[in-house]
C-alpha cells in the first residue's frame, strides 16, 4: 500500500489519517475535502489518478494544516512516530513538512526498525531535512528539481536557500551535480531530477534521460514536481522497479503537460486531469519507449 505524508495550506485543518479519494474534483479524507492545488494535495491528486488507471487501491494519507509555522508538522511527526510502528506500507512518501532535524531523526529510527522496510521517497521539505541530517542514503528515491539538485550537490548547504552560487543550476552541469551529490552521500538510492530534460540516476551514474514532450512553460507551473512525485510513488507502490517507474513517470508527467497545452499561467490541476490519458499512452508504447531510452554511460567530469 502507498502512504503519503504531508501538509495542507489551511491552519485550521486537523490531523487526519485515512484513505484518500476524489469527490467533486476535491480530495476527500475522513469526510474532509481539500482542493487539488500545488503541494501535497497535488501529489495526492496525481497519485490517485495513477492508481485509478492501474486499478490499484487508493493511497493512505497523513495530513495536517500547516502554513509554515511548523506547528502542524510537529503534531504530525509526533503522531507518525507512534503510528508507523504499527503499519506495514510498501511505499511511503514524505513531502511538504517543516524541516526539523530532531523529528527527522526520530522518524528515521522508527523506519529503520520496520520489517520489511518500506520503500521511502522524500521530496520537498522532508528531502531538505533528510540531506541536512546527513541521512540521504537512507532513502530510496529523491525527486529534486534543478535548483534542489544543486542544493544536494552542495555539501555545506543545509537548505536550498544557502546553495553556493558556483553550484547554481545550469542544465549542462547536471551530470556533475549528480556525481557531486553521490560523492558526499547527499543523494538517495535513486534520483529523479525534473527539468527541461528529466534525469534518472543512481550512484552508478545517469541511467536514463527523458526529453520528449518538452514544454518550457512547465517550469513556471507550481506543482508539476509534486505531480511527478505522485505518479512515480503510485507506480512504485504497484510493484514496478524504482528506475523503471522513474522513467515511466517522467514520460507520463511530460505527456500530461503536453496534453494540457500549458502557458506559464496554467494551474497544476489542469495538468493532473490528463494523467490517466498520458499513463495509458505511455504504458501502451512502453516496449517501444524502452528501446529508445537514452542511456548516457559516460562518467561525469570530476567523479
Amino acid at each position: 500500500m502507498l502512504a503519503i505524508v504531508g501538509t495542507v495550506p489551511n491552519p485550521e485543518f486537523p490531523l487526519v489519517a485515512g484513505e484518500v479519494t476524489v469527490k467533486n474534483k476535491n480530495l476527500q479524507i475522513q469526510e474532509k475535502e481539500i482542493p487539488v492545488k500545488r503541494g501535497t494535495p497535488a501529489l495526492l491528486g496525481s497519485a490517485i489518478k495513477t492508481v485509478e488507471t492501474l486499478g490499484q487501491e487508493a493511497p493512505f494519507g497523513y495530513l495536517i494544516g500547516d502554513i509554515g509555522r511548523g506547528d502542524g508538522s510537529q503534531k504530525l511527526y509526533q503522531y507518525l512516530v507512534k503510528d508507523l510502528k504499527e503499519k506495514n506500507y510498501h511505499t511511503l512518501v514524505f513531502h511538504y513538512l517543516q524541516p526539523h532535524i530532531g523529528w527527522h531523526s526520530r522518524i528515521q529510527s522508527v523506519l529503520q526498525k520496520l520489517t520489511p522496510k518500506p520503500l521511502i521517497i522524500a521530496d520537498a521539505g522532508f528531502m531538505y531535512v533528510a540531506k541536512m541530517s546527513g541521512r540521504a542514503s537512507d532513502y530510496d528515491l529523491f525527486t529534486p528539481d534543478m535548483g534542489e539538485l544543486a542544493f544536494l550537490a552542495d555539501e555545506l548547504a543545509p537548505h536550498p536557500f544557502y546553495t553556493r552560487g558556483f553550484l547554481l543550476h545550469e542544465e549542462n552541469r547536471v551530470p556533475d551535480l549528480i556525481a557531486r551529490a553521490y560523492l558526499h552521500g547527499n543523494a538517495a538510492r535513486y534520483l529523479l531530477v525534473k527539468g527541461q530534460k528529466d534525469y534518472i540516476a543512481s550512484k552508478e551514474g545517469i541511467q536514463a534521460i527523458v526529453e520528449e514532450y518538452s514544454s518550457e512553460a512547465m517550469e513556471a507551473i507550481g506543482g508539476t514536481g509534486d505531480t511527478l512525485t505522485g505518479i512515480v510513488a503510485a507506480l512504485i507502490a504497484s510493484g514496478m522497479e524504482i528506475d523503471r517507474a522513474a522513467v515511466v513517470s517522467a514520460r507520463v508527467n511530460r505527456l500530461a503537460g503536453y496534453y494540457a497545452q500549458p502557458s506559464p499561467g496554467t494551474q497544476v490541476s489542469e495538468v493532473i486531469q490528463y494523467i490517466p490519458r498520458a499513463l495509458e499512452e505511455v504504458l501502451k508504447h512502453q516496449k517501444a519507449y524502452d528501446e529508445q531510452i537514452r542511456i548516457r554511460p559516460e562518467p561525469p567530469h570530476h567523479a
Partner: protein
Amino acid sequence: MGAFGFLNRTSPESKKNKNGDRGFLVFENTSEVIQAENLLKKEGWEVKVMGPPPEIRKGCDLVIEFPLIEELKITKTLQDAGIPPLQVVPVSHPLLEPVSLFQSKDFGKYLMVQAANMKLTVDKDSLTIVNISGGGCPDVPYLADQMLGKPLDEAPSPREIGHTLCGYALQLAYEEIRRRCLQS
C-alpha cells in the same frame, strides 16, 4: 524612540565594524527572524540574515548578523517589541550566505524570476501573479494561495505572511520582479 532617536541607529561605530566584530541573534523560529529583521532595518541598523553555524542548526533556520557594538540597543529594541532573541553569539566562523543570484526567464507574455529554489511568474501586461513554483516548506502552498491572481502591487508580500526559508527566498524573487516590473 525620541524624535531624533534615528540619529543613533546607524552609528559611525557600526559602519566601522561592518567587516568585523559581528555577532548573530538567534530566535525561536524564522517568523521571529523576519519580524526582527523588518524592525531593525526600519530602525536603521545594518543587519543581514544569514545561515546559522551547524552547532545551533535545527532545521529551517535563519539568524541575524549585526554589529556587536550595538548589542545592548538592539536587544532592548527587540525586547520592547516582544521578540527577544534566544541567544546573542559572536561570529567566530564565516556564516552561510543566503543566495544572492537571480535567474529570470522571459516567456514573452510572462516573466519568471527565480531566487534560490523559488520561482515567481507574472503576466507582464496585467502585472498579475500567475504562478509560484519550487520550494518545499509548508508555507509555499499557503503563499501561493494568498498571492496568486493578485496584481504585484496589491498582493501580500511573502515577508508579511511567510514563515520559512522558502518564504524568505520567495520574498527575494518578489522584490526582484517588482523592481523589474514596477520601477521601469
